[in-house]
């Protein structure tokens, strides 16, 4: 498994106008080192699939302010006021999906499915324009699968083959994103030898991962800090 020396080389495959998935529920489980590098990379027109677009001035929030993001697909934009402001000014497109739909659509994209029917959202504004189907007397709406060119995810431990395990609620969207992109780059806290992770506990088998990088930015109770400072 390719282990990149630095975030810059890990992100060489990310280009303007691509669709990228970025893991995390807020900053928890987000690939903070890779996001940090994205803020330095000359790039624009991105479609970003992520539960949130960071927080105000933090994580993906910086990319929002740098106007690198053309469109955001997520479930909760309320927690970053800058996203709402940019939206009101017409500077960013937003596609709001129920959180379960967001997660399920990624899973479908990674599993070779075209889409699925969910009960969630039926009869609401978020169902407008979506195909309805009645199955066994229950009304569902169609949701298409989601895929991306690149997924940037965060895991806890990786082995040298690229098998991944995740830490507590930092797991969230990362395992699905690992399945649903052409190129998957995992930012990990620790790399152990193959065989050190129990075969029963591996969450993301190595066949989903294309490259890895050791995390430099970590989330602490005092905010995001560089690894060295810990």
């Amino acid at each position, binding site marked *: 498994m390719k282990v990149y020396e630095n975030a810059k080389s890990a992100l060489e495959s990310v280009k303007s106008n691509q669709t990228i998935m970025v893991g995390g529920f807020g900053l928890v*489980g987000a690939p903070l080192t890779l996001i940090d590098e994205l803020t330095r990379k000359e790039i624009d027109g991105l479609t970003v699939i992520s539960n949130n677009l960071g927080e105000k001035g933090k994580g993906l929030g910086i990319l929002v302010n740098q106007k690198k993001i053309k469109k955001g697909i997520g479930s909760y934009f309320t927690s970053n006021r800058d996203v709402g402001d940019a939206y009101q000014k017409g500077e960013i497109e937003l596609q709001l999906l129920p*959180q379960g739909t967001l997660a399920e659509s990624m899973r479908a994209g990674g599993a070779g499915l075209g889409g699925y029917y969910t009960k969630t959202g039926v*009869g609401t504004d978020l169902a407008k324009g979506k195909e309805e189907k009645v199955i066994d007397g229950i009304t569902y709406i169609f949701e298409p699968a989601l895929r991306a060119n690149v997924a940037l995810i965060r895991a806890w431990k990786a082995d040298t083959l690229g098998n991944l395990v995740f830490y507590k*609620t930092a797991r*969230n969207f990362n395992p699905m994103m690992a399945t649903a992109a052409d190129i998957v780059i995992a930012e990990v806290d620790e790399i152990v030898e193959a065989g050190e992770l129990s075969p029963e506990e591996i969450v993301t088998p190595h066949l989903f991962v294309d490259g890895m990088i050791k995390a430099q930015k970590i989330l602490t*109770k005092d905010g995001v800090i560089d690894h060295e400072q810990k």
Partner: protein
Amino acid sequence: MSKNEVQELIAKRAAQELKGRCVVNLGIGIPTLVAKFIEDENVSFHTENGLLGVSDVEGVIDPNLVNAGKLPVGEAVGASFFNSADSFGMIRGGHVDIAILGVLQADQTGLIANWAVPGKNIMGVGGAMDLLVGAKKVIVTTTHTSKDGKSKILKECTYPITSTRSVDMIITELAVFEVVEKQLRCIELMPGVTIEEVREKTEADFIEDLLVV
């Protein structure tokens, strides 16, 4: 009452609804407070971001162990972690018994609005729509009126609704309502509150169905 006291009063009343072996999902805000009034070990708390067995933080805060409101939590004995797709599979699939949610508005048929305010920066649906279609029972906990004193329980929601499914119960600092066949029934008054006060502060029509205690 202080804002804090109001919230605790509501949360404490909601806690009375949770008994025996059940799985409960707590939304952001007042719902989060419900957990601390539960002593029954058979009640398990589920959080949409991937944890069954939420408990209070014990000792050191772990920034990577949070609830749906991104606040630090602890993990109960027998807790389990899972990804977001599996977590919402549990919710939509009917495996969560009770969801306790906050609202921006509720109406007299039990519909709620809690994810968007047109023209404002409130654009976050999170897990609300999933919980409404999936949870066996939905309890709303909310202050009875908004900051500017207007009733949050309306004849009809003016904000976009969260689901076509009616909630089962609404608990405020003034009263407890049940929704039966798309009708609001006031079944209980909070201590010191009169039915007249409830009528005055409620835009919605409701049936008086107070239990004799």
